């Protein structure tokens, strides 16, 4: 199990100030921040979210092969990350219990749909929710 995990993950350290990925880069890895702090910066240059130790970021890479980073990830305190590679993760999924693998796929699919929805502005989301409510009647 340890060997399998070490194929899928690798540990990386980043110094304060380092940019882990930039907006527009291809989303290849998902990260678990073990120590330190990372700022996720949006298009307008403001900090969209600050990642604290124990949290995951860069999860777009998990869901979509062709996705581009929406945010720039910049380290604001010396950090240690667990970097998760998509291809080995997918390969490992083939070795897992079929129920677990199916579950993973379902959730990936749901995430994909939701991410597309998240690109919608708030007014449109509210209108959609209203439509859903009306349809359900």
């Amino acid at each position: 199990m340890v060997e399998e995990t070490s194929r899928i993950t690798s540990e990386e350290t980043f110094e304060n100030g380092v940019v882990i990925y930039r907006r527009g880069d291809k989303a290849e890895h998902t990260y678990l921040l073990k120590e330190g702090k990372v700022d996720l910066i949006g298009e307008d240059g403001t900090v969209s979210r600050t990642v604290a130790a124990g949290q995951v970021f860069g999860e777009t890479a998990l869901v979509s092969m062709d996705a581009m980073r929406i945010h720039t990830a910049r380290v604001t305190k010396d950090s240690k990350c667990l970097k998760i590679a998509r291809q080995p993760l997918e390969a490992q999924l083939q070795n897992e219990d079929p129920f677990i693998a199916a579950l993973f796929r379902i959730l990936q699919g749901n995430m994909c749909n939701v991410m597309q929805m998240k690109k919608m502005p708030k007014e449109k989301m509210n209108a959609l929710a209203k439509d859903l409510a009306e349809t359900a009647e």
Partner: protein
Amino acid sequence: MTKVLNRRSFFPGDIIFHEGDNGSQAFVVQSGRIRIVKALAGGEKGTLGFVEPGGVFGEMALLDNSPRMATAVAEEASVLIVIPESVVKAKLKKTNPVIRMMLVVMIRMLRNISEKVDLEVIDLEAVAQAAKFPDVPQSAGEEDDGDVTAH
């Protein structure tokens, strides 16, 4: 060793579980169709989707010990295969820890997104702990003001 699968039948309109219930089982649709419904802001109900034969639902509550996030209603006469919690937990125990962690990550994101139309921050501090991932600290649980856009 033969495994006996537990099956349950439902008539159209039967509720499999209510939003807010404590969940202890996952289901696979053997036949029929299940509508997943959620209460929206303002007290109205919206359909999140349908589960067709071969589809799994109800698994989210098992993985992160949260209450049911939606109501499942039989749209047509349906037969469901019941997957008990003990079975899911046993499977998870044998699952690669990174995969286990990413399952919980995805569930937490989906749960947060579906709960509010007004998108708010996702706090994933318990994720690594839930997956029992070695030597990852529990975060201090700081509040951040960012939105829930995937990064």
